[in-house]
């Protein structure tokens, strides 16, 4: 199971930044958004479709545009190689019928970049298993 700790976030950042499609579909995707895995929150700073920086230890002075917050169990299902029904997509999880993910803040920016954002989040399914992630240095 994914731990959603610093190493895991760094591994995801690497996968995103190595992706060959995001520079094309994410050309205009530049914002700072918040990802919440239960109590653990990170700010993801995206510049032109690449993740420039991931920040933890957030304070009320850490600005972000929109936030995606969900219980760890929701993200664990979302990040499986073959995610189960109702957990395979952020809009599936956030849909009013289901409520397994909360979308907050300036969601207009989210909808403006929804294609690149969902592509970026789908890369979470490619993060290597925990043993590999553990060996990495933490940048967050």
């Amino acid at each position: 199971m994914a731990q959603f700790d610093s190493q895991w976030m760094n591994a995801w950042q690497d996968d995103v930044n190595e992706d060959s499609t995001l520079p094309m579909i994410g050309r205009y995707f530049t914002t700072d958004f918040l990802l919440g895995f239960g109590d653990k929150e990170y700010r993801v700073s995206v510049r032109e479709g690449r993740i420039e920086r991931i920040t933890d230890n957030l304070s009320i002075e850490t600005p972000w545009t929109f936030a995606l917050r969900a219980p760890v169990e929701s993200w664990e299902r979302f990040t499986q190689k073959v995610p189960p029904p109702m957990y395979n997509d952020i809009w599936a999880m956030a849909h009013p019928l289901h409520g397994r993910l909360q979308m907050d803040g300036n969601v207009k920016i989210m909808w403006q970049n929804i294609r690149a954002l969902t592509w970026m989040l789908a890369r979470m399914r490619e993060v290597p298993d925990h043993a590999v992630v553990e060996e990495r240095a933490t940048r967050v």
Partner: protein
Amino acid sequence: MSATHEPITGRYVHVPYGGYEYRVFYEEAGEGIPLVCLHTAGTDSREYRHQLCDPDINGDFRVIALDLPRHGKSIPPVGFEREEYRLTAKFYSEFVMAFCEALELEKPVIMGSSMGGNICLHLALNFEERVRALIAIEACDHSPGWYISWLEHPHVHGGEACATSIFGLMAPQSPEDYRWETWWYYSQGGPGIFRGDLHFYSVDHDFRELNDKITGNVPIYFMTGVYDFACTPEMTEKTAEKVKGSECIIMEEIGHFPMCENPETFKKYLMPVLDKVKATERETARA
């Protein structure tokens, strides 16, 4: 070397409805029992290209897939630029029957998905004497939550946002090329059309108090995929329990667009339904 042609023929027919003559595009293939296919919200008849081309289907059925006005190649009525498009159950159900009448189809089978599935309930209630059977794919009596402004907001790219909003409705097991093809169809809808259709899907279609008014004289086959988060299997099952003459089929490893996201898996579930339609036809002929 001869060119590879598909058996589909595309044509335009003029459909009179409400004092206006709509120019409607449809595709068809095969001969036999008329099988009219209704596309999902915000897209067009291309969703049925696999069923149109399948000899196991078009051998016994005249498969017809139309583009509703404002969709695909069916142009909007004159003056559309001055109106806010909001699809209603009344227009949708009556227009489908007007199309069938224009083509002089005798008691067609009507198969639709998503909003095309939901409209089957209205057809069963109001036009049971004019249809042979209804195949309601991804349908239920109430499907709220989709009438959202971002899908037509001028600050948001309509093509990308509409298409991406439906991508997760498809199962991860469905072939990637077909899922992206469905995304592509959705990226091509006219501005505000997807949301206008969703007015029917999530607002005007509230059939909860009407389920038990369906007589059961026309067979209704509900078919829902397990990855459909807009109309879950549970929502379909609850509706089917209340609708007389219905059968409920839950499809594994497929989502909201069975006919185009995974035609092979869908076929496994669809053929037994079509066999039942044919069996009923034979019984009727004998009687």
